[in-house]
């Protein structure tokens, strides 16, 4: 499919809106500067909130001292003692307090909150609080944490352990011709959504209203209700326009929303909390750093006989979403290969780093980096072409994944792989680079120092939440006919840049059989929308969109039944909606329920880990300057089967953005920690790719609709961010003949490795 195919921006699309690039719903408002993000809301009468934080990574909290010389009546102060409800940030395990009470477990943990009428008063007040802490020994290293000398969580400092078994890998490894064992490590990554975290809360007659930057309005309903001791019905949450999320606004906003709510509740007035960039970089969640050990057993002919995989995630000081991130990591760890003997052992470990959280890919990028880099090493050990090695082992129709999930006919791993080889000209370019690398030393000028390589990765991503996850949320959507004949799609999916409002309108329109322009995608507001689930896990188009299609079909039937119309022209249908809507409520709802053929056993991790999978192959070509170790990525080709492309322009945009973010993770985004504090906590020093760092990216889509989803769309948000890192490592292997098993692969790592190799 061509990605620049844009259909009419102005004409009315009757039907067929699915698969066309209709205009972004909120695009004009964003481009005119009229879209309202939380900090753009009117400021009149709004107080500003700030956070008093601990300045050591692990300590007993003795006292909070307020300088008596300051006039504290000018501000409102909240400490743990002021919390009317439960002092907790509920995510999965409920181990994290909203404000530290007796212990501090990470540098920067919130201890108290202050609100003031203006920024300067707030600043002065914050400067006049001292926190008395009695430091305890901190742990930052996974092994030290596992030694459990410093107690942080449970008896072993482990948030969750997951084991997945298929056959008996241990036994097979003993008899395999070749066993390859290596350890891979990935670093923490910061989301750098361009709009920092922000929330505003305002007490109302019946409870409290919270609005702000978020992905998951109902997480915040739960969190604020618990914290303030209110019923969930008393908490209304409205998502503002949200300036990027990438998972960083999945779990973390529950904390800052709680803080804004506590201040507003006590101050009895609206309070806004906006993190500045430094605060955001230091204290909000990051992608989980991972350490992954692969032991794989091979036949001499290159058949993958057994895989033993150990995964350890550094979860930071509190569990947040680590148990679920770990689950996705474990289920994806063996990748898109057919292997009958698999053993996966995964642990999420507690340390004194700031809590880690959701980040695009949710544990999968880490395991794909490990496995696809490992495939490169295995090919080298076996003396086989890595292309050939993958061909021999890629999962095919009716193959089974690590959890025993039979992929049926829905498997495009081989197809995306072959297509990517063709689209990128992989084999020819690989040969050409080998050739130019060999001749480099006889070249003149800068060419002399250049080495080039091309590498690839093959991977998949499970749609929606793992196993029972979707069934437990039981998402609900609503379509409501309006008096003007339009139909409102009511969900709590948040527009964070991915095009939710547009795509959900397209999907609803498709189910309804009306022009997309006649669908109003309502803003996420928990007073209007029931829980349609979080805006995460590439589930918006796939799951929520699927529900809207079903609701749309029901809605249409209902209108046809009540109006006696059948296959009416659109205008007549619209008039019927308008008439019926004025007579009384005209609504249709759809709920998610697990497909009857989907089996999952959460205790043993056997069965259908996910509803469906998207498949992708990513090819990266790059050039290294061996004088400096700097890497220039030349181009990227990403081929993916996403089931159905709902909006070609947005789909390409997701791929391009995801690839750029992953190239940053692979090559430059390094978090430098000292004593549990991020040292490079500015955008000067935590660098993300600029327009000059990101190469041309070619996105190619295959469409194999999945039968479990009404429209076939399997989701796309996370997938593109999962392939570039191992493809970079594999390309560097060709360019330099060096195998890097740890990212980010910075020039500081490349240059010494290269020079030592030349000796």
């Amino acid at each position, binding site marked *: 499919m061509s990605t620049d195919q844009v259909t009419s921006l*102005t004409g009315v699309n009757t039907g067929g809106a699915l698969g066309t690039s209709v205009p972004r719903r909120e695009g004009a408002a964003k481009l*005119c500067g009229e879209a*309202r993000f939380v900090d753009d809301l009117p400021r009149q009468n709004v107080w500003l909130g700030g956070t008093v934080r601990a300045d050591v990574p692990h300590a007993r909290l003795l006292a909070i001292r307020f300088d008596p010389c300051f006039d504290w009546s000018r501000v409102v102060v909240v400490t743990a003692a002021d919390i009317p409800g439960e002092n907790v940030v509920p995510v999965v395990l409920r181990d994290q307090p909203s404000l530290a009470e007796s212990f501090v477990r990470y540098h920067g943990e919130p201890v108290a909150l202050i609100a003031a009428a203006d920024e300067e008063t707030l600043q002065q007040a914050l400067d006049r609080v001292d926190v008395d802490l009695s430091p305890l020994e901190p742990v930052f290293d996974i092994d030290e944490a596992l030694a459990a000398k410093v107690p942080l969580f449970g008896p072993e400092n482990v948030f969750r352990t997951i084991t997945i078994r298929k056959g008996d890998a241990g036994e097979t490894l003993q008899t395999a011709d070749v066993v390859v064992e290596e350890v891979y490590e990935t670093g923490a990554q910061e989301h*750098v959504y361009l709009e920092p975290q922000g929330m505003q809360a305002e007490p109302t007659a019946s409870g409290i209203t919270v609005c702000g930057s978020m992905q998951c309005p109902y997480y915040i309903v739960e969190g604020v209700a618990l914290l303030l001791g209110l019923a969930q019905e008393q908490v209304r949450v409205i998502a503002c*326009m949200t*300036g990027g999320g990438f998972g960083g606004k999945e779990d973390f906003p529950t904390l800052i929303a709680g803080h804004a709510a506590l201040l507003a509740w006590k101050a009895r007035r609206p309070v806004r909390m906006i993190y500045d960039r430094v605060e955001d970089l230091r204290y909000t969640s990051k992608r989980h750093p991972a350490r992954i050990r692969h032991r794989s057993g091979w036949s001499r002919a290159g058949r993958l006989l057994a895989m033993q995989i150990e995964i350890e995630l550094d979860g930071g000081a509190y569990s947040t979403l680590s148990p679920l991130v770990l689950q996705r990591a474990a289920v994806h760890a063996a990748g898109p290969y057919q292997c009958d003997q698999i053993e996966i052992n995964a642990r999420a470990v507690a340390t004194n780093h700031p809590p880690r959280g959701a980040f695009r890919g949710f544990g999968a990028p880490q395991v794909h980096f490990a496995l696809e880099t490992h495939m490169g090493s295995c090919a080298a050990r076996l003396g086989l072409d890595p292309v050939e090695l993958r061909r021999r082992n890629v999962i095919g129709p009716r193959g089974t994944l690590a959890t025993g999930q039979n992929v049926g006919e829905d498997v495009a791993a081989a197809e995306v792989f072959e297509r990517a080889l063709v689209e990128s000209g992989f084999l020819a370019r690989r040969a050409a680079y080998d050739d130019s690398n060999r001749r480099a030393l006889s070249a003149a000028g800068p060419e002399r120092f250049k080495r080039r390589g091309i590498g690839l990765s093959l991977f998949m991503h499970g749609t929606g939440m793992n196993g029972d996850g979707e069934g437990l949320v039981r998402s609900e959507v609503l379509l409501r006919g309006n008096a003007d004949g339009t139909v409102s799609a009511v969900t709590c999916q948040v527009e964070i840049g991915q095009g939710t409002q547009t795509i959900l309108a397209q999907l609803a329109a498709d189910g309804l059989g009306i022009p997309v322009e006649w669908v109003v995608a309502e803003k996420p507001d928990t007073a209007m929308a029931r829980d349609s689930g979080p805006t995460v896990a590439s589930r918006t188009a796939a799951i929520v969109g699927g529900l809207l299609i079903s609701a749309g079909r029901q809605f249409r039937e209902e209108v046809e039944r009540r109006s006696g119309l059948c296959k009416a022209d659109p205008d007549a249908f619209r008039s019927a909606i308008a008439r019926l809507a004025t007579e009384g409520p005209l609504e249709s709802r759809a709920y998610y329920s697990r497909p009857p053929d989907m089996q999952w056993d959460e205790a043993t991790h056997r069965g259908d880990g996910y509803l469906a999978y998207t498949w992708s192959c990513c090819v990266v070509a790059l050039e290294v300057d061996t004088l400096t170790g700097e890497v220039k990525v030349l181009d990227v080709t990403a081929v993916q089967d996403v089931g159905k492309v709902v909006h070609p*322009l947005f789909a390409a945009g997701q791929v391009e*953005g995801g690839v750029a973010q992953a190239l940053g993770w692979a090559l430059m985004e390094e978090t430098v920690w000292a004593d549990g504090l991020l040292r490079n906590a500015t955008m000067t020093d935590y660098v993300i790719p*600029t327009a000059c760092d990101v190469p041309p990216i070619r996105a190619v889509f295959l469409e194999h609709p999945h039968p479990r989803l009404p429209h076939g769309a399997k989701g796309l948000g996370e997938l593109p961010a999962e392939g570039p890192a191992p493809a970079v490592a594999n390309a560097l292997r060709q360019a330099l003949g060096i195998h890097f098993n740890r990212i980010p692969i910075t020039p500081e790592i490349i240059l010494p490795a290269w020079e030592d190799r030349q000796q």
Partner: protein
Amino acid sequence: MNQHAAIRFTLNGQPREIAAPPMQRLLDVLRQTCELTGTKNGCGEGDCGACTVLIDGVPVVSCLVPIVQVEGADVRTVESLAEGDQPHPLQAAFLKHGGTQCGSCAAGLLMTACAHLEHGGETDDATLRAALAGVVCRCAGYQQVIASVQAAARGGETLDGNHL
């Protein structure tokens, strides 16, 4: 030398006079005093470019400009681009070619691109990437941004008023 300086400047074609602490950054004056919130604060220290505005026709990061230095200047923000219902060609092209996703970087990219095109800058890929390097976009991977600017430069990007 008094703590609140009276500053006169032109904002989006209109003369303005405001009183502000002289070292207050232009960004805050625009967003708070003038209530033009299209210009965004992404980092507050010159690195992200989200706060880019044009001063006397050239792009600058408004988070690093003390208001005292805006005296007598001509300031243009993203709010000045569209004329009524008529989008600026860059806005139309960004809408059509995917130049914005979450919208946080939009004002910065648009104003930077606007100055580049007004000064007759080249529109090949490499030149545009260098010209836009001061605005980071975390969502879009830049390719659709570049395509949008190129489309605007080619001309003919119009949309119905009802899209803006």
